């Protein structure tokens, strides 16, 4: 890396001082032995990041920070905030955004896209099978007991036939790149994956506050996602006379993803409704409008399965619509995603995805799983307990990073608690080796440091599969942290997929 000698002398030992007028230096950036998305192990920029690195180096000191501040202010003004649970209502936070983008090479992306297509095609066939004949269970490829006692397996969904046999219309698969430089799937997220609004807004904020870094690069666009989403939703509509009426169903303003619900409704130009705006009337779902009831054909619902209809699922749900499932069963309204998809999201079922792909498609899996021990199996459970200090233990039915125990970092007491919890309910836990998530340079005060990231691409499944190029790069902002979730000190970055 070429950097002016003047700044080299000031490279840091605790606090870095720059001579006035100096340029940004990337010399002191430490790889620390992790796979870095921007630099090779020897510190030279990877081919995909060369132009970006040059640009960062040519920037006057302080300029990058100014860009970062401008981006923060833009986010606040745009009201891109999420509410934090456990705080008083109305507490909003801007989700931290770092202006150094994460770059994905065209070749890597082609591989990821192929892998996602394969995986989601197979998982969709799996869900359909599980709620019908259960061939895969009969053939013993996935244990029947494991599937049927998955918390997200919903008995009332048996025999349902969503249009075109598509259950998981919107998927947000979590990928990580491990120390070996390969991508792995961490979670499949087939229920209500959130975050796609940040993908679009992050790109917008980048263009507003840091336009010069785009010059000379060909980056695949993400702005057409809402259009594609609407197209997919209209495609799954039951037969209607005119164009189908699509709505987004939100739990309401206190939900942490409310911003996204409203963002997507706005960009698609459809109504954002709450459960109480909807009512079942004469066999159809209708919304209450200023001129009476109006029929709704497609509901992109952002509330959990069991809250959808208090008559079918949780009777205490005030978020859903009584009688909704009857209309759905009768084929008079479409739900995206279909209720019941969560069964393929169970982390113990996840362990069987390679077998699922082989069973339905006769292919080897392209995007591999992280090696996973299913505690439901007594042998694997013993192994997990014996190696608890080296493994990451996760509950099978949680998301958002809740309930995770990171063995190598946990205290003896935390480990003991975890072992007790596993013993009490082994079905509820899986364990994985600790991963060395790849890192991306991230602004820390006045310089760059490596921070761990993951990548969540978004996939739409309507008439065909569409994979949004890029996705959400979440970054663990705390030094050394591997947890990227927004609820636990994570932020995000713009993700660039380059074309050749």
């Amino acid at each position, binding site marked *: 890396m070429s950097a002016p000698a003047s700044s080299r002398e000031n490279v840091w030992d605790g606090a870095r001082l720059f001579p006035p007028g100096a340029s940004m230096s990337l010399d002191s950036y430490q790889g620390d032995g992790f796979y870095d998305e921007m630099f090779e192990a020897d510190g030279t920029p990877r081919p995909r990041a060369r132009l970006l690195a040059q640009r960062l180096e040519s920037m006057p000191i302080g300029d990058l920070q100014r860009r970062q501040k401008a981006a923060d202010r833009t986010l606040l003004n745009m*009201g891109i905030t999420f509410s934090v649970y456990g705080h008083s209502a109305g507490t909003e936070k801007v989700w931290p955004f770092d202006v150094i983008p994460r770059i994905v090479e065209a070749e890597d992306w082609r591989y990821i896209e192929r892998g996602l297509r394969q995986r989601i095609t197979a998982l969709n066939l799996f869900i359909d099978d599980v709620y019908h004949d259960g061939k895969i269970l009969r053939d013993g490829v996935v244990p029947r007991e494991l599937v049927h006692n998955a918390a997200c397996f919903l008995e009332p969904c048996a025999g349902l036939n969503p249009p075109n046999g598509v259950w998981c219309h919107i998927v947000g698969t979590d990928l990580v790149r491990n120390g070996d430089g390969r991508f792995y799937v961490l979670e499949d997220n087939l229920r209500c994956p959130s975050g796609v609004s940040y993908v679009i807004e992050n790109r917008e904020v980048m263009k507003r506050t840091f336009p010069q870094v785009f010059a000379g690069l060909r980056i695949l666009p993400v702005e057409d996602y809402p259009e594609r989403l609407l197209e997919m939703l209209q495609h799954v509509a039951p037969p209607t006379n005119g164009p189908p009426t699509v709505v987004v169903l939100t739990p309401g303003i206190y939900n942490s993803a409310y911003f996204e619900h409203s963002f997507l409704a*706005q960009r698609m130009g459809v*109504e954002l409704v709450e459960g109480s*705006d909807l009512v079942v009337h004469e066999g159809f779902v209708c919304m209450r409008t200023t001129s009476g009831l109006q029929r709704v054909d497609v509901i992109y619902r952002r*509330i959990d399965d069991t809250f959808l209809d208090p008559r079918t699922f949780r009777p205490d749900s005030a*978020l859903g619509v009584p009688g909704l499932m009857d209309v759905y069963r009768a084929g008079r309204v479409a739900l995206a995603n279909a209720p019941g998809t969560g069964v393929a999201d169970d982390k113990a079922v996840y362990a069987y995805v390679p077998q699922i792909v082989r069973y339905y498609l006769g292919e080897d899996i392209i995007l591999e799983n992280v090696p996973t021990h299913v505690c439901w199996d007594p042998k694997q459970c013993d192994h997990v307990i014996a190696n608890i200090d080296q493994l990451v233990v996760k509950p099978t039915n949680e*998301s958002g990073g809740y309930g995770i125990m990171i063995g190598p970092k946990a205290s003896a007491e935390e480990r003991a608690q975890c072992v007790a919890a596993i013993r009490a309910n082994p079905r509820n836990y899986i364990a994985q080796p600790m991963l060395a998530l790849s890192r991306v340079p991230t602004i820390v005060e006045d310089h760059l440091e490596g921070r761990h990231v993951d990548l969540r691409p978004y996939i739409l499944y309507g008439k065909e599969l569409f994979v949004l190029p890029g996705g959400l790069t979440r970054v663990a902002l705390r030094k050394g942290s591997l947890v990227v979730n927004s609820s636990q000190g994570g932020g995000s970055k713009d993700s660039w997929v380059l074309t050749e």
Partner: protein
Amino acid sequence: MLSRVANSIYWMSRYLERAENVARFIEVNVNLTLDLGEGPGEQWGPLVAITGDWDAFTKRYAQPTRDRVQRFLIFDLDNPNSIASCLRNARENARTTRESLPAEFWEELNKFYHIIRGTDPDSVSEQPHELLELIKNSRQLLLGIIDSSMSRGEAWHFAQMGQLLERADKTSRILDVKYFILLPSVSDIGSPLDLIQWSALLKSASAFQMYHRSRGRITPKQVVDFLVLDRHFPRSMRFCLNHAEASLSAITGVPVGSGQTPAEKQLSNLGSQFDFTYVDDIIEEGLHEFIDRFQTRLNLVDDAIFETFFAIRPLVGTAAAADHG
């Protein structure tokens, strides 16, 4: 459109108009103070009186001084009609209806909100001009966005209706200032001091220039006629009612004057009353009494709009139980 959304847009619009008008109220007084000189003659109590929040004020602040009144009207979040409260409420309503509003509108409203929230009350006590200017300008910007980028559909008409009804109410309150501000003695009626007060009133309604062009010299009767009954000035009470009625008719699709919903009946009733009112009638009844009656009638219109379009529905509790991070 969704009843809930219509309701929120109507109220968002009312709150924004209210915030602007509170800024205008304060401006009248600041103007008066400048014209008449500071000192014991400064009257800040009337400002609180016309907002209708006198009791709430005296309970917490005791004597109305300049600093306290400004604090109460601009920043006090416990005063539901302060500018800060109005902006907070407008923003919350806009947030639940973002999909129906232009994106730039939300962004500007958000900026507006953060600026007021981030302003130190101590920094404006003596020099409120700059902040009041900023509030009015931010509001004008929002109006401009609505005007130039929102389709004239139902949502726009609900916003119009909210804005115009609120404005009619607030213009009536600006006029009412004159009732509460005391002249040193009865013989001062018609004196230069009296004229200065009427001018300040016109200025705070942005009516000074338009008044002069259409009415010439300032006389109390003409000022009342202009702010209550003028057909062309967009802040006059009659103009507001007529245009609110037009929006209502656009929403229901029924010509003005022939609608049968409670909202149409009430509004048409109030509007037609203005057609048969002359300024002499108002003076005879007493301006303050006339305004009082008008405000009561306006509340009935608001109730009728609620009954007609928003209806009463069970409230939904909070919702933490869904959607994955």
